[in-house]
Structures are given as structure tokens and as C-alpha cells.
């Protein structure tokens, strides 16, 4: 057969008119794309970013205390997510406790440990093992970690006196000095 040249494109036979199913299909498609885009953006965002106001929460400690926004306001708050089964968390546990003992007398620094997806007995054993004295409580329903959009443990969020996130650390602190370097600038006069 000899060469057949590609024929010109046939024009559609009718002009497009709005039609219920057509509209529904387009609406459905856009809804899907919007939903997926929103979640994708959020995943790309990562955890709460420096400068933003992290979500408020109320922590019920293992001792039964309730610590919420009232107890946290006006203070430098260090929020540390940990778990008893998390080996890297143990690396920073001693340093965090030392830092707490250093800052606690001042009265304007608060350390909060949040046990993430942990069992109570294992958490208490961990606290006892490292002699931790700052308040610790379970992340009930994993609501706090979901609000912070954490991706694992250990993670630490340092909040300044105005309630904005000053720094975050997505791995264990390597030394006491590093913790102090995160907190000292926020203490003010």
C-alpha cells in the first residue's frame, strides 16, 4: 500500500452542552485532586515549623496532674516525645534530666515528656531508670503527636515565652550543651 497521509482531525459532531453527569464527573475529579493536594502538602510540610504557634494540648501526667496552656504560658517549654522501646531516646534521657535540674530553680522553664504509644508500666520503668523528675504523661489517643505531626521518636520542640516554636530537634540531643544552646537564648533578661 502506498503512503497514506494522516487525515486531518475530524471535528466533533456537536457542540458541548452542560449536562448533569458531565458536571458531576468534573466536580468529582476536582474534589479528588483537591483532597489529594491538601494531604500531599501537609505531608510535605513535615512537623510544626519554627515560628508557628504549636497546637495547644492538655497533658495528664502519670501522677495524675493536668498540665495545659495555663501552666505553660509565659514559660519556655521544652516538649520531648519519647518511648520506652526507643533506643535513641535513651541517649538523650540523662542530658535532658540534667538540663531540667539546671533550669528548674528558675521557675520560667518547663520540661514536658510525652510518652508516645507506650505502655504505662514500661514508661514508668524508663522514668525510674533515668531518674526523671520533670512531668511525664502518655499521649492519650496519640492526639498530641498527630497535632504536632511528628514522624517518630525522639523529637523535641522548644517553645518560647510567647508561645511560638523556637526550635525543633528530630533526633536525640547529642549533649547537655546542645540543650542549653536551644534554651538559653529564649530566657530573656
Amino acid at each position: 500500500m502506498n503512503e497514506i497521509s494522516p487525515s486531518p482531525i475530524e471535528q466533533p459532531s456537536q457542540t458541548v452542552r452542560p449536562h448533569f453527569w458531565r458536571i458531576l464527573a468534573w466536580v468529582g475529579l476536582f474534589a479528588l485532586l483537591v483532597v489529594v493536594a491538601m494531604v500531599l502538602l501537609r505531608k510535605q510540610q513535615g512537623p510544626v515549623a519554627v515560628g508557628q504557634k504549636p497546637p495547644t494540648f492538655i497533658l495528664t501526667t502519670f501522677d495524675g496532674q493536668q498540665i495545659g496552656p495555663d501552666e505553660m504560658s509565659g514559660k519556655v517549654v521544652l516538649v520531648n516525645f519519647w518511648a520506652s522501646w526507643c533506643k535513641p531516646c535513651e541517649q538523650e534521657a540523662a542530658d535532658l534530666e540534667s538540663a531540667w535540674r539546671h533550669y528548674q530553680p528558675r521557675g520560667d522553664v518547663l520540661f514536658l515528656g510525652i510518652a508516645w504509644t507506650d505502655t504505662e508500666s514500661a514508661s514508668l520503668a524508663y522514668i525510674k531508670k533515668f531518674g526523671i523528675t520533670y512531668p511525664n504523661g502518655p499521649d492519650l489517643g496519640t492526639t498530641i503527636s498527630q497535632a504536632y505531626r511528628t514522624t517518630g521518636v525522639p523529637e523535641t520542640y522548644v517553645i518560647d515565652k510567647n508561645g511560638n516554636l523556637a526550635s525543633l530537634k528530630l533526633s536525640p540531643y547529642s549533649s547537655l550543651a546542645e540543650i542549653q544552646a536551644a534554651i538559653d537564648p529564649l530566657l530573656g533578661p
Partner: protein
Amino acid sequence: MVANLGYGTLIIALVVSIYGAVAAFYGARKNHPAWVDSARNAMLLTFPLLTISALTIIYLLVSGHFEVQYVTEVSSKSMPLYLRITALWGGQAGSLLFWSWLMSAFASAVMLRKWDRDREFLPWVILVSLVTLAFFLILSIFVENPFLSFWQSPTGNITTAMFQPAGMTPYIPPDGNGLNPLLRHPGMIIHPPMLYLGFVSFIIPYAFAMAALITGRTDDRWIRITRRWTLVAWLFLSLGLVLGAWWAYDVLGWGGYWGWDPVEIAAFMPWLTGTAFLHSVMIQEKRGMLKQWNMILIILTYDLVIFGTFLTRSGVLSSVHAFAQSAIGPLFFGFIGLTFIVSLSLLSRRWNDLKSGAEMTSWFSREALFLLNNLLFVGIFVVCFWGVIFPVISEALGIVGQQFPALAGIFTGQKVTVGPSYYERATAPLFAGLLLLMGVAPLSAWRYSTSKTLGKAIWKPFVASLLAVAVLWIAGMRSWPALVGFWLCALVVFVTLYEYWRAAWARHNTRGENLLQALWNLAGRNRRRYGGYIIHLGVVLMALGIIGIELFQTETQGTIPQGGEISLGHYTIRFDKLSVWDTNDGRNIARAVVSVYKDGKFVGELYPRREYYYEAQQPMTIAGLRSKPEDDLYVLLVDWQPLSTSAATFKVYHNPLVWWLWCGAAVFILGTIVAAWPEKDPEMVILRKVVPATSKA
């Protein structure tokens, strides 16, 4: 240096793809065949270029060039040769390149067919293929570059970059991380390539469908051309899914083969719509109906392939299967947006041209039953899609709830799991319906079938199937889901054998062929129909296995000392020995020897083991498996407690009939090969008119 070669060919391939796409578009619009031919050559050129690129990665992997980041990620000194080669698809960057290579292979193969009758399709097929290829190449070049190398600054900082940054020297890690231990299994070696083959080859029917929509040639020419392609794509996808199930059963150590994980479902959904499409195109070929619906199905199938790939690789879904999150998410999102919108626009534009003079003569005709088949497949698809997308929607609504506190009560955004019980409960009746249709539809005729004719045709197999179930009842089975399931399986088997038998008998009578010859020739004459029957038989065998394991699986777990025993049903396991040692490829193996007794009689030994990979810090449990047609005994070494000779914990699963799942899968694949096999020219028949020799394109 070799890495630069690979990267260079990637860039050239991208340039060639863009050129080809533009040339195809220009040639079609301006009616210049020379440009279209040039575009075709560009398409063909991408294949050798990408082959070079792929070969360079394989070379780098095999020879252990750890200065290349990808090699360090997936390869290591202690890995054997074959694993180093398969590490090509062990990580995100390599698998994307592999994907591009497969796509250029398929698209080039299409270019080599005879295009004389379909020149108007050619530019558009090229355009669709090259645009897709260009996208994946952009991902590989700019975002997930497998050729990035390590560089070290004088201060000791290590970064990755393609070309040497100023003031830095090459950094060569001493060894790589090695392939994820879970991937070092024969099933894992061919499961990803098969799956990718299935995914990628669906672009061919899609490209032709788009060409049909653009050119306005909306008759079934595009279906006839791609008929075999679609079947081959479907074959690879089915094979990929089955291999994945086999790997899960053999290696993952949870006594099951399918976990309804979102990524598994993402691969399953295009298979569902693809199967619906395979059946539905037969209606268009026989009756000229359903052109609009077939377009919808093929667009849906291909878009689901791309969407599923996006979900797996972008981090939107969290799953054991998902690749680590990377920046390809937003780019990929842009691509799926483009694909969805273009597909829908083209379909919308040509919608009215696709109208066909549809008429349905009977509720029991084959068309009607095929449509019912489509309804069920699409129903299962809807269940799966909703289950996968709901957590995403829930999270998105949670974001809305955060912005508008009034809605925060309802739109909590709390993470939820949509697990197997949702999927199983929702899809079980739909699958049962499909089994029933598999039994009835072969007996119905195109156009004319009434309840009477169907009833006449089916009553014998129907009675036989009831007898089979009665036997089960008498033997003590009381579970009604199992009875219904087995009844449906028996029905399909008897109907299929009956159909085959009647036709073979007719040939025997008219041609004097013995039955075996008749069976062979039948399959040869009408491969699609008889291949289809074999596929259905395969499905029924798989259904037997699935019913067995889902409804009758039992398990037990216990800690026993050496010499101790644990029982499950008819079986007793005795713990004989435990050896623990380190291998020379970085594993610690704990291997138990257990003796198996059935009803008190010794039937064999099993060797469940637990492997621990030091580098990856990952444990793997490999079951000791005794597999017989009637049941599987699956023994695992569990380390809830530390393993020692004084006490080891074993978990024992009894899985009846699972063997039939694999047997059925093999029959299924065989049937697909029969159906796809090119047919010989038809023999001249007694009819007194000349049958024109149509070429099978």
C-alpha cells in the same frame, strides 16, 4: 565517569522525547507525514539510549561503585551477583529508571508494527507515549537521580551531587547498606518487574484510545489493534499480583497472602477495571455497543495505574510497601492532574460521537451478563477505591476542621485504619456474584437467550454442582459461606467442562477426531474463548484455595522446651533442635528442626528459621512449610521470648486448600497465554462463500 555516561544518555533521551512529542504534534496538525516519521524515529531512539542508561546502573551496582549514592543504598559487598542486578529496582531512583526503560521498550515495539491502515493514529500514540516517558525522565533527571555521587568537603562534610562541586573530593563509603532483607527472595526478584510490565504496557491501549478520541475514529479499530496488547498487559499485571501474594505467604511470616494494604490495593484496582474492560470490549466487537463505556474503562484503568504509582511513591499513603518520601510527590501530582484532565476533556468532547445503536434483546443474553460482570467488577473497584481514599479524605477534612473550629468536632482528622475486615466483608458477596456469572455466562448466547434456553443449558451442570455440595454436607461441613462458595466453584467447573465436552463431542462426531485431539483443536481454533474457559477454571481453583484458607484457617502458638510438643487439629509438632549461627553475609540465623506428626504418624521435618540482618537491623521469619493439596502446615519460629533450646515459641498455622491457590494461578496464567497466542489462519470451512483473509493486526 560511568555514572556521567548514564546520566548523559538520560538527558539525551529526554531531549529526544520532547523533540519527538513536538514533531508528532506538528506533523499531525499540519499534515506533514515526514515530521511524523521523524517522531517515530525519535521514539525508537529512546530505547537504545535508555538501555545504555540502565546498563550503566547495573554495572555500577555489580562492580560495587559505592561512591554512587544509589549503589550504597541498595547494594553491599556481601550481596551475591544476582541480587546486585535486581537491586536495580530495589530503591526509588532505580525503579523509576527501570520503569522508563520498560516504557520505551513497549512503545518502540508498537512503533515496529505495520501502520499502513492506521497512519492517523500514529502521531497521537507517539505523543502520548513520549509525554509520559518525558515525565518519568524528568523525575529521574531532576528529582530522583540514580547517578548522584558522594563528595567530601575539606572539613569532612559529605554531600551528594551529580558533578564535582568546587573544592570537594570524591567520597567512597567502605560498603553499602545492602538490599532490604525482605526483598532478597525469588518472588521479590520477579514480582516488581512483572508488576511494572503490567502497569507500563497499559499505556499502549490507552494511547490508542486517546488517538481514537483525538482523530474521531471512534469505531472499534483501536480495540482490535490493541486487543492482544491489553491481554498481555493484563497477563503481566495478574502475574505480578500473584507473585506478590506468593512472596507474602512464603517470606513475610504471617500465614497469609494478601493483607489489603493500600499499596497492594493500588495495584489491584487497575486489574479490576482491566478485567472489566477485557470482557466489555467483546461486547463492542460483537454488537457494536458500549463504546462510551469502553472508553471510560480504559481511561480509568490507565489513570488508576498512574494514580496508584503516585500514591505509592509520594508519601500520601503510609504503608509497609511505600517508598521513602521524597520530592517527587508534587511533580507526580501535576502529572496525574494533567492526565486526568486531558482524558476527561477528550472523552467529553467525543462523547456524542461514541454513541452507538445499542439494543438489548434479552436480559439473559451474553451482553447483559457481561454488563452485570462489569457492574460487579466496578463495584469491587468502588469498595477498594473508597477504602484507600477515605483516610486521605478524613485527613484533608481534618485540615479543614483545624481552620474552621466550628467544624472541628466532626472533621477531627484523627487517623483511622481501613483494614481487611472492611474489604473482605464488602467484596465477598461481589466476588461470589462473579463466580456465579462465570458459571452462567458461557452458556448464554449473544443477543438471544431466554430464561428457558439458559435453564435448559444449565440444568445438568447445576444438578451436578448440587450433588457435589450435598457430598460436602454429608461429610459434615456446616459453614454456609463455605457451602455456597464451594457450590459456585463446582457450578463453574461443571459448566466449563460441559461446554468444552459438548464442543469436543461435536467435533468428534463430525470429523472423527478422538476427544483429546478435538480438545486440542478446539482450543487452537478459538483461542480466546477456550483460553477464557481455562482462565475461569484457574480462577475457580484459586477460589477453592481462598475459601479454604479464609474460612477454615486455624492457628495456635506456644512456648515449648526442646523435646516438647504443640498440637493443632490433626497435627503435632515436636521441637527437636535449635541451632544459632552467624553467616558470612551479615546475618544471624536461628534455625529450628521440628518433626511433624499427623494423627500420630510421622510425616516429615520442617525447618522454620529466624534471620536477623545486622546491618539493616531487621529480623525476618521464614516459615517451615509443608504444602499438600489438602492443606498446608505452616510453622514459624516466633521471638516473643528470647529463643533458646530450653524454650522456643512456635506459631503453627493450618491452612487448608491453599495449594489450590497457586495451582489455580498457574492454570490462570496458562489460560491467558492460550488466549493471547496468535491464531493460525482459519481453515476453509464448508460455507459456500469466500471468507476474506483479514490480517490479524
